[in-house]
Structure formats: structure tokens, C-alpha cells
């Protein structure tokens, strides 16, 4: 019983209860019941995640609430069912549990077709995502990692836009391709190290730097596609544009974070020497991603595509922070993961709202919406400002600490490249203002001259209720992020020490 009701097991697998209930519902009728069941399930899961947070002790820099039982045993190797939580994963678990009910609420009127199946896939997706962030055994991690693909594949492939099949298959194949390499590396680690349990592997350490290099790249292949890092981003616009709104929210909000999370969780502590060695390369790709994503976002005429490309830019910041390899950078990077989940998630919701009303996302169809939908306009403005990093809102705290860390990587005796990276990344902030303001202007400012927009209704209470929690977080993180930094601080400091110790050993 203790095992079953372990907080981490509960928070991961509770959505299955909802799935079970949904399975007993009729297909055609009871659509509202399906919605309510899944919403309540997601809310309870969020409640459980709060309970986990209450039990979490941020002062311990290691994995806690650890749970390990043998799972598969054969030929002398044991694969463990190992779950644990630390300062790096707790925020992402909370983010997952937070965004899922919001995304479900956003489907209330958007998804009319096969509601029950949609909700089942959605809750399954939550199980997979939470599992990814909690798994402490490489094999278990891999299982969760691949498991998330399936529900997302169906969410895009069944409830997506016109080219959903293409997008779904591309999403699936792309991610699969990277994962295969990671699986090989996982097998190598497990066979050589004798265990798949991550904390044990980190403790053992001592992998030859030459081999680390290749293992790092194999893991990076899987994660970089997921992030996605330039130039592996090609699946992202397709998946985002075709996915239903809730799918986009989760895709941007959580699924992409699995990639960046993977870098922090596995690549840095398992292969510290390689991380040190490859940091300039990763930094370079990140900066190219920032600039490229920002430039390419600007001429997009489809709002959703614009937001999708902006994700490439934002996640470039996260990657830059992580590979600054110092506290400021990594903490900023992790916070920025959360920020991006909130801001971009909110942007996708906002796009979804207008799409539900007008059934188009072309910028040229809009203009002057502020006059017609003032509440919508103001909320969008706040979210857009948060996305482009206005101080006082969440995006700034993340971006500033990342850039500070990145500059510090140069100041701390790293290469001069770090200065250059920082400068270019900071220039990306300008470009972010350009495309975001352009989007905002095209949609909300100027004369309201399209007659089709004249009778649009402003947001209803449900839609406002969806956005308000996000806005609260936007302001909270922006004005008083202490709580979030304290959650991850000790863990990240310990990680930084680990990586730095490795680099000293190399020298």
C-alpha cells in the first residue's frame, strides 16, 4: 500500500483513474461528463502535486522521496522502477500538473468530436510527462519518454488541422529517430555501469571522456530534437500548427521541456567532461536558434506558426542558460522552461480563442481587435509582453538570469565566445520585441476594417478563468521569483559543483 500510495506514484498515475472512469462512459453521449471527469481528474492530480510540493524539502540538494523496486531482471541486469524528485524536476512536475487542467478547460467547446477519446489520450499524456520528469532509472525514463509520443501522435493525428496526418507522422518519426540513439547510449551505460539507476550512475562517474563525448551526443540527439534546437526544428511548426489548441499548449508547455530537462538531468551530471567540452557548440547552436527563430517568426502570416517559431527562439535561451554551466545560467534556464510553458502556453490559448471565433489565424484577417474585444486585447498584451521579456513579468527574470549566467561563463575564464553569444542572444530580445509587437499590432491595433470581425464577442468567463491562473503566475514569477529559485537552488548548485569538479579533473 505504501508503494501504491507513494506521493510520486500517485501524482504520476492518478490520471489513470480518470481514464478508467472515462472508459466506462458511452461514446456518443455523456460528452460533458467526459469533460468534467477529466477536468476533475486533472485538478486532483494538481492537488496531489501540491501535496508533493508540501513534502518536498528544497534544502536537500539530492533526489528525495526516492522509491526503488526491481522491475525487470534478466541475465544479471536489473532494471529498477526508480522514481524520485529534486529541485530540477519539481518545477516541471508542477508545471505539468498545472497546465493540464488548463488545457483541458480550453477544449470545452473546441473539441466536439470524440470527446471521451480525446480526454483519455490527454490524461495518458499527463501520465507519460510526469513520469518522464520523475523517473530515476534510465530505462524507466526511456519507457515514459516514448510513451508520451503515442497520445500526442493521436491528439495531432485525429483532432488536428487539415494536414494533421502529415504532421503527426513527422512528429512521431522525428522524435523516434533521436530516441533510438539515446536508447543505444542507455544500453551502453546500463551494461557498463551495471545499473540503470541515474543517481548510482552519477555517483560512479568515471566514464572515459572519449566515450563520454559519444554518449553525450547520443543523448543530445534525442533531446535536441525534442527541444527543438536549430536546425532540428522542422517538425515543430507542422506539429504546432496542426495540433488542436490544447495539444499545442501541452506540446509547447511541457513536451519541449522534456528535451531541455533531459540535458540538465542526464547530459550534465552523467557526462560532465563532455558537457564542458561541447558547451561552446551547444551555446552556438542555442544562439543561432535564438536569432534564427526570432527572425523567422517575424514574416509568418499565421499567428500560430509565428508563436511556434518563437518557441525555437525561447528555447534557445533555455539551452544557452543550461550550457553556461553556472548557477545563474542553469537556474535561469530552468525558470525559463517554466516561463515559456506559461507564456507560450497562454499565447497558444489566445490564438485558440480567436480561431474558435473566426476559424482563421491569418494576421491579415485581423486588425483593430482592441476596439472590439478589449479584455482579450489587454490579456494578450500582458502575455506578449511577458513573452518578450518585459521586466516585472516572468519572461524577464528568466532571460536576464540566463544572459547574466552566459556572460558570466565568459567572465569566469571561459572563452570569449560566451561574450559574443550573450551579445547576440541579447540582440534576440530586440528581435523578439519586433515580431511580438508586429503580431500585436496586426491583430489589435490599427483600424478595425474587416467587417467579419465587427461582431466578435469578447472573452467569456470560462476563457478568462483559463487565462487568469497563467497571468497570476506571470506576475508572481516576475515580481517575486524567490520561491521558485529557492526550490531549485541547492540542487543546481550541487550540479554546478559536480560539473566544475569534472572540468578541474580534466585540466
Amino acid at each position: 500500500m505504501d508503494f501504491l500510495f507513494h506521493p510520486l506514484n500517485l501524482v504520476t498515475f492518478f490520471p489513470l483513474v480518470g481514464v478508467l472512469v472515462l472508459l466506462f462512459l458511452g461514446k456518443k453521449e455523456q460528452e460533458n461528463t467526459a469533460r468534467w471527469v477529466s477536468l476533475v481528474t486533472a485538478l486532483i492530480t494538481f492537488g496531489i502535486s501540491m501535496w508533493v510540493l508540501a513534502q518536498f524539502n528544497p534544502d536537500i540538494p539530492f533526489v528525495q522521496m526516492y522509491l526503488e523496486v526491481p522491475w525487470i531482471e534478466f541475465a544479471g541486469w536489473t532494471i529498477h522502477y526508480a522514481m524520485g524528485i529534486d529541485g530540477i524536476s519539481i518545477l516541471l512536475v508542477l508545471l505539468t500538473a498545472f497546465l493540464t487542467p488548463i488545457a483541458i478547460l480550453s477544449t470545452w467547446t473546441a473539441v466536439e468530436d470524440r470527446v471521451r477519446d480525446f480526454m483519455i489520450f490527454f490524461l495518458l499524456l499527463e501520465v507519460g510527462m510526469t513520469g518522464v520528469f520523475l523517473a530515476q532509472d534510465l530505462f524507466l525514463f526511456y519507457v515514459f519518454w516514448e510513451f508520451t509520443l503515442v497520445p500526442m501522435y493521436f491528439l495531432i493525428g485525429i483532432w488536428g488541422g487539415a494536414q494533421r496526418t502529415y504532421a503527426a507522422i513527422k512528429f512521431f518519426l522525428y522524435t523516434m529517430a533521436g530516441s533510438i540513439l539515446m536508447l543505444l547510449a542507455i544500453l551502453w551505460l546500463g551494461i557498463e555501469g551495471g545499473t540503470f539507476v541515474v543517481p548510482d550512475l552519477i555517483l560512479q562517474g568515471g566514464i572515459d571522456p572519449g566515450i563520454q563525448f559519444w554518449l553525450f551526443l547520443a543523448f543530445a540527439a534525442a533531446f535536441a530534437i525534442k527541444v527543438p534546437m536549430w536546425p532540428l526544428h522542422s517538425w515543430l511548426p507542422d506539429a504546432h500548427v496542426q495540433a488542436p489548441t490544447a495539444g499545442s499548449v501541452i506540446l509547447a508547455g511541457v513536451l519541449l521541456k522534456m528535451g531541455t530537462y533531459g540535458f540538465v538531468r542526464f547530459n550534465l551530471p552523467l557526462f560532465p567532461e563532455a558537457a564542458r567540452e561541447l558547451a561552446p557548440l551547444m551555446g552556438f547552436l542555442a544562439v543561432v536558434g535564438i536569432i534564427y527563430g526570432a527572425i523567422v517568426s517575424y514574416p509568418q502570416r499565421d499567428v500560430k506558426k509565428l508563436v511556434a517559431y518563437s518557441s525555437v527562439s525561447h528555447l534557445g535561451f533555455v539551452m544557452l542558460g543550461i550550457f553556461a554551466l553556472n548557477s545563474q545560467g542553469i537556474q535561469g534556464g530552468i525558470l525559463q522552461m517554466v516561463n515559456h510553458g506559461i507564456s507560450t502556453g497562454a499565447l497558444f490559448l489566445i490564438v485558440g480563442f480567436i480561431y474558435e471565433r473566426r476559424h482563421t489565424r491569418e494576421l491579415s484577417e485581423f486588425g483593430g481587435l482592441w476596439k472590439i474585444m478589449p479584455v482579450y486585447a489587454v490579456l494578450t498584451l500582458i502575455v506578449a509582453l511577458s513573452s518578450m521579456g518585459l521586466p516585472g513579468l516572468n519572461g524577464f527574470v528568466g532571460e536576464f538570469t540566463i544572459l547574466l549566467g552566459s556572460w558570466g561563463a565568459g567572465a569566469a575564464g571561459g572563452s570569449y565566445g560566451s561574450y559574443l553569444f550573450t551579445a547576440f542572444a541579447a540582440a534576440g530580445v530586440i528581435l523578439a520585441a519586433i515580431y511580438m509587437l508586429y503580431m500585436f499590432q496586426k491583430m489589435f491595433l490599427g483600424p478595425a476594417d474587416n467587417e467579419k470581425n465587427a461582431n466578435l464577442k469578447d472573452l467569456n468567463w470560462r476563457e478568462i478563468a483559463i487565462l487568469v491562473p497563467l497571468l497570476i503566475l506571470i506576475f508572481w514569477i516576475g515580481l517575486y521569483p524567490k520561491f521558485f529559485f529557492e526550490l531549485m537552488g541547492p540542487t543546481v548548485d550541487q550540479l554546478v559543483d559536480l560539473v566544475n569538479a569534472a572540468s578541474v579533473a580534466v585540466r
Partner: protein
Amino acid sequence: MQFELFDLAPLLVILPVIGLLVNILIGDRVGERGIGWIASLAAGLTFVVSLLLFFALQGHHEGATVPFLEWIRIGEFNVGWNFRVDTLSNTMMLVVSGVGTLIHIYAAGYMHYDVRYKGDPHSYKRFFIYLNLFIAAMMILVSADNYLMLFVGWEGVGLCSFLLIGFWFTKNPDGTDGHSNSNAAKKAFIANRVGDFGFLMGMFTMFWAFGSLNFGDVLGHGAVEHVSEGTILAITLFFLLGVAGKSAQIPLYVWLPDAMAGPTPVSALIHAATMVTAGVYLVARSAPLFHASHTAELFVMFTGAGTALFAATIAVAQNDIKKVLAYSTVSQLGFMVAAVGMGAFVAGMFHLVTHAFFKALLFLGSGSVILAVERGHHPLEGDGGHDDHHEDEHHDDDHHEVFDPQDMRNMGGLRKIIPTTYRVYLIGSLALAGIPIFAGFFSKDEILADAFLESQPVYWILTVAAFLTAFYMGRQVLMVFFGKPRTHAAEEAKESPPSMTIPLMILAFLSIFGGLINIPVIHPLTDWIEHTLGHDLVHATKFNWQVAIVSTLLALIAIGISWLIYGRKEIDASQPDPLQRALGPIFIGMRNKWYVDEIYGFLIIRPYERLSSFLAHQVDWTFWHDWFHDSGIAAGFRGLANFLANPVDLGVIDGIANGLARATKGSASALRLLQTGFVRNYALMVFLGVVAILSFLIFR
């Protein structure tokens, strides 16, 4: 814990925020008057708090830091929401909240008409929410105790600027529907972002050099000496970029003239008196840093001086009453930046204060003029209420003719029609032109005197700029107020209500006597600021009679010339400007702002658009998405699959499989006759089998 007056500092931000929240919540119920009162009260209380802090400082010249909340702390990086109250920041607080309050009161009257002329009375509330937000952001800026918090205010005022420039976001500046206003807002934000980029980089450099962003740690005694001069230079130059963005210096000044798209009180408050001076404040605040690098000082000084002259030349040829003032603002900001650049921090701050008075006065006065002409053009019924019928008429007017109430060629002779506005406007103009006894004279003269000692080239550049200033102000006053009314609207112009004229009179009073705050010989402001910046950085400038006489004479000459050109005989609105005959192509260049916008468009904006479009459509989509992935990888895979499927699979493997299948099919079609579908038939077969087996068992 003992309560001190300094602990009131957070109220500077909290009060305006409360004001705007109250207006958001109950603004719809209290009516225009209520909204105006709430907002003005919030601003006024902020001024009261500033005054209280001023008195607190009388006892404790060293000031105080008031911790409020922890903000970001990662490792050694620790920045909090801490408020700094010292003589320098208090000066800014007083100016911002004082002028801000006056402008709130003025706007309560002005916006009543403006929202009706723009046909959207619901925007009244929105305007005052923004204004209060601006006061809050500006207070964060000036009361910050560290660079990061200053940056919050810095971007916050930028946001308010964006919102207020784009206040009439569906229109063009002339009132027609269009995108110009929103474009101007966007331009302002992006130009400021470029400056912010510099500010950010400066902060990064600073943190890793000083280990802190707090004023106390960076600017305190001796901190600068531990850092190499190259690093200081980098920091200061990065900051200079920020200053150029916010305070509209070359090369980022281009947003400020466009920013006149905002309602006139906004131009007065944000784009003349307070926000744009934030850059000057930043340099003055960072005085020890700038002082530590001579190169940096040179850069700042020449940027300021160049801007002062350059903008003044453009101002000479503008016809839009607000554009003239806008370029004049850019030019005056150049004076201030040049002053702080040459180490005359007090002179810069002095000019900042007086300029806030007289430029706010001029902008508000111009607003009064514009409104008067607009009301002359088509009066609102009853001048208090309005009804829909009239708005319809107004709408029709737009179709007939585009009347620009801001064009000085449509004015003339307003001296007698709106005498109150005329008088205060004249005072503001004389102050700006630098005529003795007015506030502008003392502050400008102090800068010139410093420049005279510091750098002769800069002195001469600034003197020429001052000459041009006097000239274009003379031109403006003559074109607007003298001669005969050139349009029907000007003849019918109406004086503004008291809620507008009383703030104007207060500002006029300040424009006359504002110079007293740093009157030569006593130098009260110098002593005041010395408490913060320290004795090394502050020196009382001796009054230089030579400089004073030269500049006064030049100003008088300039006004005389302007009278010769614009005042002596009537100007015909349809004729080209009289000055154009004299200057020819130079005048054309000046009128077209030296084509800087066009050059930027050609050099930066269009290439960027082309690049982004190329990257997005050609590289990312056509090449990377479609060609590489779809045609390359996907089609390649499909090709391989087809090869395996057709020749290999169909030919060889399928051959075998099909042969088998064909045989099976043939035999099946024969055997299917056995499948009659009758169950009994099957049973018979079974029975037959039983008998047969039994027979076999028997007879084997």
C-alpha cells in the same frame, strides 16, 4: 523598529498603482470627473510623499536605502526591490510627481474634448490608467537602489510610452483611420529596445566586474578603482546606447518625433518632461563610472552636442506645432547629455528640471492651442456634453476635408483670440530661447559655461544650437499667435477651460522662477546634489559673463531674424515657407528631417524584412522544411521503399507468393463447391468421415 519618513518610499510606487487599480475597478461608475479625480489624487499623493521625503532629507543629507522585497537571488547574485532616497533621486521624484500631477489635472480637462473628437469617449478611463501606470514605473526608475530595478522602471516607462503613443491606435496623427499611430508606438518600443540591449549588456559587464548591481557597491567609494578602465569604458558605452534610446540621442532619436502621435498631455509628461530625461538621470546617477573613463565622457559629450545641433536644424523647418517642440526636446536633451558628459552633472540636472517646467508648459500650451483650433473648426455641442448626432456630423467632416489642427499654417493671430494661452506660451518660449531672468537662461547658461571651460568645439556647437533654438521658437510664436488668422478655424478658436489653464499658469510661474533653484553665486541645487554625488564630482560653476552675454545676444538676434522673416509681413499658408527661398535645398533637407527615417528604412528595416522573409520562406520552409525534409529525407525514404517494394518485392518475393496464392485460389474455387452452406451437409460429411474411418479400422 523605529519608523522613519524614509520608510514611506515604497508608497511612491504603491499609490499610483492603487490609483490605477481603483480606476480599473470602479472607473466605469464614477464618470469622467471621478476618474480624473482619482488619477490626479494618486499622482498628487505621490507628490506629497516626495515632498515628505524631501523634508526627511533635510535632516539626513546622506539619504537612505529602504528594503522592500527580495527579488532575484542566485548564488552571489542578489538583487532586491530596494528603494533609494537621496538628494539626486528626490530631485527626480519631485519633478516627476510635481509636473505629473499638474499634467494629470490638465489632462482631465483636455481628454474630455479629445476623446470626443476622436469619437471614443470610453477611452477616457484607459488614458488615466496608463498615466498612473506611467507614474508608478517612473517612480520605480528614479527610486531604484540598483541598476536592475532601475531597468524595470526604464522598460516600464517604455511600455507606458508604447501604450500612450498608440493611444488612438486605430488612427493616424491627423485623425483619419490608419496605422500611423500604432506604427509610431511600435517604433518607439523597438528603438527603446535597442537601447535596452545596451543597458542589459552594461549590467552584465558590471555584475561580473563589480559582483553586484547595487548602487552602493558599484558607485561607492573606491569600487571603481578595482576595475580596469577598459571594463568601465565598456560599461559606460553600453549605457550610452541605453541613454541614446531612452533620451532620444543620435542614432536612436527617431522615435521621439513620431511619438507626438500620442495625446498632447502625454507628449508633455512622457516625451518632454520626465521619461526622456531618464537617460540623463542614469548618467548622473552613474557619475563615478563615467567620470572614471575620459573616453566615455568624450563619447557622451559629443553625442549630446551633436544631437543638440542636429535636432535644432530639423526643428527650424517643421510646420507641425508639436513636431517643432519634439525636435526641440531632442535638441534640449542633447544639451543635458552633453552637460553630464562633460562632467557637469549638476548643470545637466538643473537643465533637466527647468526644461521639465518650460517644455511641459509649451507642450500643454500647444495642446491648448490645438484644442482651441479644433473647437473653432467644429465645436462640440454645449462644450460639456456631447451627443451621437454631432459625432456623425464630425465623421462626415473627415470625408470632406482633412483639417490638421496641428499645422501652424492653419493658425495665426491667436494672440487676441486665446490670450491666456498666448501669455503662458510666450513665457515658455522665452524660457526655452534662453532670455535672461527666465529659468531656461540660467540652466542653459550653466551648461554653456561649463562647455566653454571643458571643450571649445562643444561650446560652439551648443551655442549654434541655442541660436537655432531661439530662432525656431520665434518662428513658432510668430506663426501661431501673430499676424491674422489664416483659417476660419483659427478665427473661431476658443479658450481652454480652467482645469487646463490653471496648470499652465503654475508651470508658467515655474518657468519664470525655476532658475532660482540653482541661481549663480548661491547654487542651492549644486549643494543639494553634492550630498549624493560627493565633492569630487560636483563643482559650482562660476557665472561666466562672456558666455552669458554672447548667448543672450545671439538669442535676441535669432528672434529678430525670425521676426524679419515671419512677423514683418503676412504669411500665405499656400505659399512655400519664406525661409525656403533663402536656404533652398538645405531647407528641404531640414524639413524632411535629413531623410534619416528613409535612410534607416533603406539600411536596416527593409534589409531586415527581406532577410527575415528570405529566411522564413525560402530557407526555412522551401529549403529546409519542404525540400530537405519532404523531398530529401521523406521522398528518399519513399524511393527506397518503392525500390524494395517494386522490383525486389514484386518481382522476386511476390512471384513466389503469387504463385502459391494462385494455386491456392484455383483449388479453392474448386473446393468451394463443397461449401454449400447447409449445416446438414457438413454433418453428412462428418458422418461420412466417421463411417469411412470405422471402415478403415475394420478392413485394414
